[in-house]
């Protein structure tokens, strides 16, 4: 009798635990529907109180010096602090004027920018002038800065400022895409000499720009606080303060939003959390097709060097179905290295719809009727994702044994950059199609020098790339881009797998979260109702 009782306690406790978790599971979306979203933070809505927006930040801040900024979440903060000569329209991704009111070029060689007058620097650093532009861009080029983006200005022959409100660039070769180089992104962002000199090696923690928000506090281990730049040239933003709280764990972030502890989740990238939040009535701000993930094949690998093998791979895996099954919101199958909203995007290429028979046949033709075993690199941080597991199964069905070699992220990057892999992956967020194609396909960029990890070198294609870049006639240029895509999709040194979407779920009362194609949000347009 006594013994049975003992057992009962065990069972009981286990049951209570189960119940607990079961409760939280079943009741949440229902109750959450009515309570969570409306349970807004009082500090953000009470009239008279300053409007404060609380945003979940998902990784450690890594500094905000445009010369060496990296990773999207950091770039998004910089995007709101700094300005470039040009900027991107949030909704369309089009290039729009920013610090330059207007620009002109006749030959894509000489670019003249007319600067906006009366623009004030944050924190009382005075008025913005052409000297600031020259200082900023020369700083990028200065080897002492060791900016990884210095190469972006390689094509610049000279920069001049004939007057405080004019800047003239002379390029070495014509470049129709030059505006991207001076837009509000990376090297294009303009800094203030006095501020840079004042902060010395702590510049990355003391950014001073001309954008709508200024950095008030950056605590790399817990939060970043931005305050409204009241002298912003477009007028003060509706929101007075943005607090970015670092919450790395996705589940915690989801609960924090449900609890009203934060207003917006910057990038929620777990399908199941999006599920919960959508059901609970949160606003699902998102942008589609912001970037395409590629499978990078090492063309020097004896098996992968065979084009038929690569094509077989493409036929063997149903990326659409995987995306639909695993994360229908966050991604779908990709059809090109470019994205459908980009200039020059084309589907008039070889398309690989799921066809295992064809894959097998191609493998047989390539001399691998029984398949082969190959390694794909991955990071231990993300592990073997569900989607990777499914790909593995698809490949197995045609005889390809895919093994994963998981290493920590830095090693992964290092191997990828040096080209030391069989199969790896790449995702390049960019708005400039030329940049995408050049980075991946041009022999100048062959790893370890650049992003051409496949070590793809096709003189025919290289020639087309170069002439497209110089081409002034946009129709002809688009045609060239299409031809490039046709070659790539036939040869598949890179296999487009998924086109990703970005979600920033928010409380329903947060308006104006428009995510641009670089997955960034301009908080100037955001308001709390």
């Amino acid at each position, binding site marked *: 009798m006594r013994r049975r009782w003992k057992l009962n306690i*065990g069972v009981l406790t*286990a049951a209570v*635990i*189960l119940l607990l*978790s*079961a409760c*939280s*599971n079943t009741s*949440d*979306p229902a109750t959450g529907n009515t309570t969570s979203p409306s349970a807004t933070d009082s500090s953000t809505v009470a009239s008279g109180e300053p409007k404060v927006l609380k945003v979940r930040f998902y990784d450690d801040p890594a500094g905000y010096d445009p010369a060496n900024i990296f990773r999207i979440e950091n770039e998004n903060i910089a995007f709101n602090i700094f300005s470039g000569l040009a900027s991107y329209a949030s909704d369309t991704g089009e290039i729009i004027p920013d610090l330059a009111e207007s620009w002109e070029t006749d030959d894509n060689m000489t670019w003249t920018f007319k600067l906006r007058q009366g623009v004030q620097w944050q924190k009382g650093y005075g008025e913005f002038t052409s000297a600031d532009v020259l200082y900023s861009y020369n700083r990028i080029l200065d080897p002492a800065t060791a900016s990884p983006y210095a190469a972006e200005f390689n094509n610049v022959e000279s920069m001049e400022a004939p007057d405080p409100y004019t800047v003239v660039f002379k390029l070495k070769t014509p470049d129709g895409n030059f505006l991207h180089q001076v837009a509000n992104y990376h090297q294009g962002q303009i800094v203030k000499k006095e501020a840079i000199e004042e902060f010395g090696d702590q510049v990355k923690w003391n950014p001073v720009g001309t954008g709508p928000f200024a950095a008030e506090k950056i605590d790399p281990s817990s939060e970043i606080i931005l305050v409204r730049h009241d002298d912003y040239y477009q007028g003060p933003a509706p929101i007075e303060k943005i607090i970015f709280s670092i919450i790395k764990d*996705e*589940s915690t972030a989801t609960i924090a939003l449900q609890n009203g502890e934060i207003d917006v989740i910057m990038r929620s990238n*777990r399908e*199941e*959390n999006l*599920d*919960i939040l959508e059901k609970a009535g949160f606003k699902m701000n998102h942008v589609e097709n912001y970037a395409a993930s590629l499978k990078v094949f090492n063309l020097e690998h004896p098996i992968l060097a065979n084009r038929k093998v690569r094509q077989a791979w493409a036929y063997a895996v149903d990326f659409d*179905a995987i995306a*639909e*099954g*695993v994360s229908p919101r966050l991604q779908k199958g990709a059809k090109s290295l470019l994205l459908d909203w980009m200039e020059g995007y084309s589907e008039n290429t070889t398309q690989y719809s799921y066809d295992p028979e064809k894959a097998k046949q191609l493998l047989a033709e390539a001399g691998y009727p029984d398949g082969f075993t190959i390694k794909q690199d991955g990071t*231990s*941080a*993300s*592990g*073997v994702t*569900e989607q990777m*597991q*499914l790909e*593995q*199964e698809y490949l197995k069905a045609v005889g390809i044994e895919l093994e*994963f070699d*998981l*290493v*920590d992220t830095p090693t992964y990057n290092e191997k990828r950059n040096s080209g030391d892999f069989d199969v790896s992956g790449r995702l390049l967020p960019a708005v400039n199609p030329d940049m995408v194609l050049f980075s991946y396909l041009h022999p100048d960029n062959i790893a370890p020098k650049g992003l051409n990890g496949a070590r793809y070198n096709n003189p025919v294609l290289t020639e087309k790339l170069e002439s497209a870049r110089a081409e002034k006639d946009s129709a002809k240029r688009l045609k060239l881009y299409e031809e490039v895509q046709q070659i790539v999709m036939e040869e598949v040194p890179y296999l487009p797998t998924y086109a990703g979407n970005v979600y920033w779920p928010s409380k329903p009362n947060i308006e104006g979260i428009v995510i641009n194609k670089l997955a960034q949000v301009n908080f100037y347009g955001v308001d709390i109702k």
Partner: protein
Amino acid sequence: MKQEAVARAVGQPAVASRPRIQLPYLSFLYVNKNAKWAMVILLPILLITFLAPFLPLQAPLESNIRASLNAPSLEHPFGTDKLGRDVFSRTLSGIKVSLFVGMTVALISLAFGIALGTASGFFGKTVDRVIMGVVDIFLAFPSLLLAIGLVAILGAGTVPVICAISLADVPRFIRLQRSLVLSLKSRPFIDAARTVQAPRLWLMTKHIVPNTIAPLLVAASITAANAILIEASLSFLGLGILPPEPSLGNIIKDGQVYLQQAWWISTLPGAVILLIAISLHFLSDGIREALDPRARK
């Protein structure tokens, strides 16, 4: 269990004076109550686990996206996960991996613990100082940190995980074995053997090590339980055993994010881990009791 208390109260020697049938080493498994409990839990789990290939179950890696996140049913006793894989069959194959990790870690810890701990305790002096110096260095790290560090060096996967967890446990075993040896060293039966000039090797192999086995087994079964739990923690940090190979740790980790929609993915394997860990604790209690009638649960 209460014998010693009674013996003390009554003033009778705790050991029965009438001859009993001497049972072999593992006899406590069916004599001792705790050990019996451990077996009652462990045996069925082991049985099902190793019968898994013969059961009409979906293969652990077989996915079926149409049957994603199904609640537990007759067909899927533990439900299905996001990819429509059968959580039950994954759990069973995870048990194998987890038990393998647990057992291997316990064995490695035992082997090194016995070898180095005996040397340290028995020889003393320089040998002792060197071994204990190194042990102290390793013990200066919280165990998980040590494991994280090692996995960072070796990379994730089953072997590194086993190494990493063992690295944290071996020093503890050396310490334990050393203290056991030290206390045994002064026991009269060692003196008895020394009076006939028994060589050191004889003392160590015949007298010391056999008498440390039982307490070491107590520690080893707890270590096995802890190793299974640490593997789960490492998996949570992405440093454990890598999917798709299921370990209880990575199943729980994967299921954890679905806790709000599909509680079963994480909870049921979690319960299994608990059961295994509890039964291993029972086992250790059982060994302890079999060893020392005074010890209470």
